[in-house]
Structure formats: structure tokens, C-alpha cells
């Protein structure tokens, strides 16, 4: 649990700044502060929540709301499937029911990139500290929106990205195949996000599209003997 909390601190810091801007944006759509905080604490998604509160603000239908969440968040199903192959025996059904709630891009990647299968306690530690950051940032953003200087927020932004780098590069150094798939994925994502027409894709969808394509190339060219 302690190790999970410690490893989760970069996620905490990153979430603090990301959810801060979500808080500001959601209150700007005339939603009451409590509902914005509740949304963050029960959903723990970024793109999904932002799309969700936008729909709630214009009184869109329930079906449209549910479908939008399904499309934006379907990537988590893939992550859950992947992580189901990398947990130890402490992950009982009851624990899985709880830990599944914490399946975000960042928490998934941190847990999956651990050398050994992760335990229930580790994932709980990462999850709790991360959701704390997500809720706290949202609350601050919703309450104090335009008051805090943006330099504070910007200084926290690199935390998440730096953590991602620290998860990929050491493994890429050890394993040529990881270097290849990571480079293909990042390169592809740059093209998709910056090229005309393609950049119209929703950001969550663009991300998973590139990640899946690169992982397929990896599985095809460098199949693991014992993955």
C-alpha cells in the first residue's frame, strides 16, 4: 500500500493540475460546484467527464450521454483486459470490483509496467492517492477558478509526462522491441494529432487508435516468448 501511494505521487500531482482545469471548465458551464466534484469522484476520467458535463449542461438525452461515455471510455475495457493478465493472487473478485474503479490510463500503465504482477494493496494505494488528487484539483478549480495564478498550474503539468517517460525509457533501454513500439506509437500520435482532417478525431480515440496500431505491429514483428 505504501509503495503504491509513493509511486502514485506523480499521478497525484498531474491529476491535481488536470482536474483543476476541469473544475474551472465545468463550473463555467453553469453546473453547481457540488455536482462537479461529485462527477470527478464517481467517474475519474478526463475526456469522458468533460464531454459528459457539456451534454448535461445542454440537457441532452440520457441515451446520448451513455453512448458518448461508452465511446470515449471504451479504451478502459482493453486496459482492464490487459491488467487482468498481470495481477497476483491477492486480487480476489471483491478486490477486482473495487480496483476496477481506478482503471485510468495512468494507473493502468503504472501497474502494468511493474516487473511483477501487481497486488491488490499496491493498486489500492495508487488508486486512492490518484483519486485524492483528482477530487482535490476539481474542488479547487470549481471553487477558486480564475483566482489562482496559472503559473502554479503550469508548473505541475510536466509531472505526469515525466512519470510516463520514467516508465517507458528504462524498459526501452533493456528491450529493443519496447523502444520500437513506443516510438511508432508516439510518432503515429504526433501525425494524427497534428495532421489536417485527422486532428478532428476525439483525443481519447486518437490515443487508443495509435496505441493499438503500434502494439499490433509489436505483437506481429516481436512476439514475446513469455509475456
Amino acid at each position, binding site marked *: 500500500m505504501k509503495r503504491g501511494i509513493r509511486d502514485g505521487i506523480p499521478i497525484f500531482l498531474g491529476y491535481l493540475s488536470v482536474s483543476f482545469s476541469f473544475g474551472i471548465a465545468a463550473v463555467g458551464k453553469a453546473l453547481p460546484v457540488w455536482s462537479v466534484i461529485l462527477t470527478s469522484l464517481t467517474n475519474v476520467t478526463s475526456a469522458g467527464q468533460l464531454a459528459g458535463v457539456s451534454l448535461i449542461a445542454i440537457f441532452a438525452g*440520457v441515451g446520448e450521454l451513455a453512448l458518448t461515455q461508452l465511446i470515449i471510455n471504451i479504451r478502459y475495457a*482493453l486496459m482492464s483486459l490487459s491488467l*487482468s493478465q498481470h495481477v497476483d493472487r491477492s486480487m480476489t473478485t471483491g478486490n477486482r470490483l473495487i480496483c476496477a474503479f481506478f482503471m485510468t490510463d495512468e494507473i493502468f500503465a503504472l501497474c502494468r509496467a511493474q516487473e511483477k504482477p501487481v497486488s491488490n494493496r499496491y493498486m489500492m494505494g495508487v488508486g486512492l492517492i490518484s483519486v485524492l488528487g483528482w477530487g482535490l484539483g476539481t474542488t479547487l478549480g470549481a471553487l477558486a477558478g480564475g483566482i489562482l495564478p496559472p503559473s502554479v498550474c503550469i*508548473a505541475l503539468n510536466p509531472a505526469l509526462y515525466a512519470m510516463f517517460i520514467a516508465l517507458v525509457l528504462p524498459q526501452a533501454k533493456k528491450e529493443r522491441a519496447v523502444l520500437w*513500439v513506443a516510438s511508432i506509437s508516439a510518432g503515429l500520435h504526433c501525425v494524427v494529432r497534428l495532421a489536417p482532417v485527422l486532428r478532428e478525431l476525439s483525443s481519447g480515440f486518437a490515443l487508443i487508435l495509435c496505441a493499438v496500431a503500434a502494439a499490433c505491429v509489436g505483437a506481429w514483428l516481436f512476439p514475446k516468448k513469455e509475456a
Partner: protein
Amino acid sequence: MTTTYLLSRIAVMALVTYLIRMLPFVLVRGKIENRFVRSFLYYIPYTVLAAMVLPDMLFATSYVWSALVGLVVAAVLALWGKKLITVALCACGSVYVAELILGLFL
């Protein structure tokens, strides 16, 4: 916007999102044997992470240059085998300093 309206819509969002995350995690218990699928599931976190860094990190700060400073600092410390938290805090610190310096000239 009534409280009932808000609560019901937030519940719908939360439920859909939770089911997406929970079902595969709880239902898939055994080891998947297919080699392609296993390799795919092994590579997917690295491809997700790499795509989250680029190009987004470059636009997450006030200037592309300060983001590049953070990226280089993080990469060097990561290859050096430093802990996650050390890499993250040093990157934040270096970006903060870089932004102060760049702010003087730009």
C-alpha cells in the same frame, strides 16, 4: 437544473464508465494463451504511455522550449534509473526554472 436531474445524469455516466472498467477485469480470470494477444497486451501500456507523452507534453507548458527542457531532464534521469517521483519533481522544477528564464526574454 434540478438536483434530481444532475444526480441521475451523473449516475448514468458513472455507471457506464464503471461497467466498462469492471467487466473485463472481473470476468477474465484465466491466462490468455494466444501468443499474439499476450504480446499485444504486454506492449499496450508502453504504446499508451508513449502516445500520451508526444505530442501533448510539448503543449502542456507556456513555451515549447521549457517543455523540451523538462522532457530532456526526465529522459536523462529515467535512463539513469531514478525513481518515478524523483524524475517527476525534477522535471517540474526544471520546467519552472526554464519558464522563469524564458519569461525574461520572450
